[in-house]
């Protein structure tokens, strides 16, 4: 008698039911139940109250800064992170390993520390602030400050996703492009960039998500002027401090849905891009 049911495919790790159950249970406890409770709380609002929240210019401004700023920061990080990854992979120079390690600092540093440091640097009397202030550029205590903090926390995501893919690119591919008559720029835009695109997109998405959720560093440098340099997470805290729990959860719920939709869209873009690259590949 065969011990295994021949109709079932053999798997290295047995127990699909068990593992899926654990996965769902774990996700429920940590993610799904807390998020559901958010919606349950927020559902206490009437339609008028929802409309009132959405019509509030302070709320609108906060959303604009949180998502707009995060988008700008992620775009900046995509470009800067690609550059950093490129330098780390393609060139060998003294201190390369040190810089490589430094890239991860924003992961580890308490964001409040980063925020205080950035605020001190970019304040009108700060080292960088006093240089750019005469040029009419104000960073600290403006929306620009929020974007600077968002760039800071998001950088490692792009570097760390792009770096391994860049390391994998065979120099022969570039040589092949050159021997076919492509210039440096053509080789970069037509050969290297498309190969990096999926990783770059992933890094962009992660940096964006991180910037949307960032709190600690932004509140120290942005100045948090209502309607101007106030981010959504701070607005939620403000509402909580005013004992407006329903208002806070409503804003949080909107933020959650918006983030989810955006991440889903980015995910779809990634999938489309990946499928395009390896259509039907075995």
């Amino acid at each position, binding site marked *: 008698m065969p011990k295994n049911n021949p109709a079932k495919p053999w798997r290295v790790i047995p127990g699909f039911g068990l593992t899926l159950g654990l996965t769902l249970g774990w996700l429920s406890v940590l993610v799904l139940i807390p998020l559901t409770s958010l919606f349950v709380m927020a559902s206490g609002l009437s339609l008028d109250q929802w409309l009132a929240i959405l019509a509030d210019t302070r709320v609108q401004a906060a959303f604009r800064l949180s998502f707009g700023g995060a988008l700008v920061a992620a775009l900046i990080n995509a470009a800067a992170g690609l550059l950093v990854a490129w330098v780390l992979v393609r060139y060998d120079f003294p201190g390369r390993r040190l810089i490589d390690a430094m890239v991860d600092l924003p992961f580890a540093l308490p964001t409040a520390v980063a925020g205080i440091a950035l605020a001190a640097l970019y304040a009108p009397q700060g080292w960088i602030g006093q240089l750019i202030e005469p040029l009419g550029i104000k960073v600290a205590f403006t929306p620009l400050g929020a974007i600077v903090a968002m760039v800071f926390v998001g950088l490692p995501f792009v570097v760390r996703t792009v770096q391994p893919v860049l390391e994998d690119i*065979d120099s022969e*591919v570039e040589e092949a492009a050159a*021997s*076919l*008559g492509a210039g440096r720029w053509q080789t970069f835009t*037509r050969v290297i960039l*498309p190969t990096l695109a999926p990783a770059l997109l992933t890094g962009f998405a992660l940096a964006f998500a991180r910037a949307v959720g960032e709190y600690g560093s932004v509140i120290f440098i942005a100045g948090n002027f209502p309607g101007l340099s106030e981010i959504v997470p701070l607005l939620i805290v403000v509402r909580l401090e005013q004992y407006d729990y329903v208002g806070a959860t409503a804003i949080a719920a909107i933020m959650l849905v918006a983030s989810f939709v955006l991440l889903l869209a980015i995910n779809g873009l990634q999938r489309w891009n990946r499928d395009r*690259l*390896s*259509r039907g590949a075995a």
Partner: protein
Amino acid sequence: MIEVQNITKHFGAFRALDDVSLVVPKGKLVALLGPSGSGKTTLLRILAGLEAPDHGRVILDGIEATEQKARDRGIGFVFQHYALFRHMSVADNIAFGLTVRKGKDRPPRAEIDRRVGALLDLVQLSGLAGRYPTQLSGGQRQRVALARALAVEPRLLLLDEPFGALDAQVRKELRRWLRRLHDELGLTGVFVTHDQEEALEVADEVVVMNKGRIEQVGSPAAIYDQPATPFVYRFLGNVNSLPCAIHDGRAEIAGLSLAIEAPNSGGEGDGIAFVRPHDVEVRPPSDGLPRAVVEQLAILGPVVRADLLLPGNISIEVELTREQQNHLSLAKGSPVGLSLRRARVFAGA
């Protein structure tokens, strides 16, 4: 005509090429043959402009090109591991060299499509234009790489171990196909290989390289029949190298006495005689002949390989047909007489 003159190239302290000069005649397919580290790939890369020589010159069709960039040389390069653009379809890969051209040099889209179609026919991949490299077998990928290189109508096609990553059967097919393709298109080509069979089968001319130098240049027959140096003898095919003493124009190998082939040894004293296994004639033992004993016998399809033991414990490998073996009724331990049809002696080697 493609020419390199006095090329020297170092990688750190390692001398990859040492004063190498070579002419590739128009329309010929030339093999650079040598063991790994012999400098053959470096020479190929210098021709392509992917590597710059320390000294020496590269001359393409009579024009100095040493300083010219790879992209301006009009040389097609096929890599051992294909180096296809994996985010592009087969058709886009092949079209790449045309679509990166600028302004009036770029053919119209319809013309590019036509040429891609023609090249796909040429490399027998007509149905696969829309596939991606990851969906192809190794042999198919290499043919795409070849079509991609041919699309720009290069004046010279370079192939770096083009079949090295393929399995034996595919390799055999592809190299015959490459030979036919070369005869059809009449292009000038240089390919690198460490496989002597491949070099002898495919090339018009073989350049044997060793330790950054050229040992010999010649037709496959000439390289095999008249190796110029002990290295070439050893590298091309199976050969017995027997220590011998040279005296008065004769070489003495453990009781076998043979006449030196005139011009090349020119010495007295110790030397080495090279004898191909099929150049040893095995006969029944008789008085006038040197004697040996059959030590090992292996039947390899149509041929029989035997190790014979000469007096003085010198072993010599011979090859004979099954017919000859039956005729002599050879078996392990049989005494035989032998003579050499052809041998070559190098003094001092």
